[in-house]
């Protein structure tokens, strides 16, 4: 009975994480469309929400990696998964509050790894999976997106450089509806699967599913819904950082950045790498900007973003480990610890949301 209560709390927390993931990450997906005025902010966010929902149904390869490739499923308990999730949510909210587009994916992985390490020691962490499926792709993806977008925009300028700017802009603006849609779809498939993977990990740890199982349908549908709702509700501060504070883009740059980002994320999702869309689209945006003019990229803002990237896994791991230490005081099988932490977490989240909403107005096209 007690383990079922913990499982319900874990599933609720995972879906809350998924919501914050949509809230925090998906804005990156629409930032370029808004920045180039290809779409009005509210339309872009609604469009992204819809395609994130659809994208969640495309594949299960990333979910399998998260469920069985990062930590030892046999050694992990639902309480450990809960602590990891709280670590990830906490880091997401901190970076959201300060407007830093760090990676929700790496926050999630860092949180779960930190909690598993504190609970069961180094044996619980599959370091090969962590390095091979997370750390190396984390370095490769933004670099690849940077190079791809840079090369793509150079080809584009070569082909349409002598045409009338007005016609070219109109063409790429229409194209951005498709490229932005693909990016949202890519985000949905990679990021919603991480939540599916974590819930599946909790179900395996609880003995509800056997090791190596695919996520049940209710897990897929609820994860898709949570990320789509999160996407719709917000992330305006992050939009502002991604859309204009890194670089002012023309529509060709926006199209090439979105195309490059979507291509890299979809390719990685297909082989099961839990990538960060934030890292990837940031790399693509910087590549599209730097190829035109290196000084066009605001490297100071880009530096802050890189700082947040580097910090994400260790910081989320530290919070996840700390939460696990607190929760385990009440006993590994007790629901008391998760209930207390979840209640405090909800209160703090509500306070942060209220404070943030009081301070920052929603974004309009004119502000981007």
């Amino acid at each position, binding site marked *: 009975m007690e383990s079922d209560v913990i499982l319900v709390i874990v599933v609720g927390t995972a879906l809350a994480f998924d919501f914050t993931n949509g809230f925090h990450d998906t804005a990156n997906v629409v930032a370029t469309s808004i920045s180039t005025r290809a779409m009005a902010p509210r339309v872009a966010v609604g469009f992204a929400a819809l395609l994130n929902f659809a994208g969640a149904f*495309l*594949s299960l390869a990333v979910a399998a990696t998260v469920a069985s490739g990062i930590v030892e499923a046999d050694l992990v308990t639902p309480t450990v998964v809960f602590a990891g999730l709280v670590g990830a949510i906490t880091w997401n909210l901190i970076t959201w509050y300060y407007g830093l587009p760090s990676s929700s994916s790496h926050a999630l992985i860092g949180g779960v790894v930190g909690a598993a390490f504190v609970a069961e020691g180094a044996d619980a962490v599959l370091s*090969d999976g962590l*390095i*091979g*499926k997370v750390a*190396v*792709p984390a370095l*490769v*993806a933004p670099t*690849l*997106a940077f*190079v*791809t*977008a840079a*090369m*793509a*925009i150079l*080809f*584009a300028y070569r*082909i*349409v450089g002598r*045409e*009338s700017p007005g*016609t*070219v802009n109109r*063409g*790429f603006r229409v*194209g951005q509806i*498709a*490229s932005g849609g*693909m990016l949202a*779809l890519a985000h949905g*498939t990679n990021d919603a699967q991480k939540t599916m993977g974590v819930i599946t990990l909790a179900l395996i740890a609880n003995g509800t599913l056997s090791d190596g199982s695919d996520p049940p349908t209710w897990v897929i549908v609820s994860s898709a819904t949570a990320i789509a709702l999160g996407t719709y509700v917000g992330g305006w501060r992050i939009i502002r950082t991604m859309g204009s504070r890194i670089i002012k883009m023309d529509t*060709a740059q926006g*199209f*090439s950045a979105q*195309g*490059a*980002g*979507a*291509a*890299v994320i*979809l*390719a*990685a*999702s*297909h*082989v*099961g*790498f839990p990538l960060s869309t934030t890292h990837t689209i940031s790399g*693509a945006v910087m590549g599209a900007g730097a190829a035109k003019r290196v000084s066009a990229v605001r490297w100071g803002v880009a530096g802050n973003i890189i700082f947040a990237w580097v910090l994400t896994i260790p910081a989320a791991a530290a919070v996840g480990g700390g939460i696990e230490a607190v929760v385990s005081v009440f006993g590994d099988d007790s629901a008391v610890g998760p209930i207390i932490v979840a209640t405090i977490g909800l209160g703090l989240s509500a306070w942060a949301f209220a404070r943030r909403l009081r301070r920052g107005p929603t974004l309009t096209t004119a502000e981007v």
Partner: protein
Amino acid sequence: MRLPIADDVVEWDLLLQVIWAGLAAGIGVTIAMSVAILGATRAADARRDGDTLDTIFYSALFVLGLAACAGAVVLGIVVMTSKD
């Protein structure tokens, strides 16, 4: 140079697959869109000038570019939904 430790940990074949697919699709789609825009712009100019041959050629370029973009999107979704 190959790193023996990294060989055990990193799935290079998958990583290389991501690299070539990302490069090909990312650059290919932008080139296709650029060709479509070039075709549309030049076709409009040729139509205005009454140049039938150029109008047909650039209109075909526009259609080809657009078809390549749409094909890439469909191919991407088909690949994603297919299991290895």
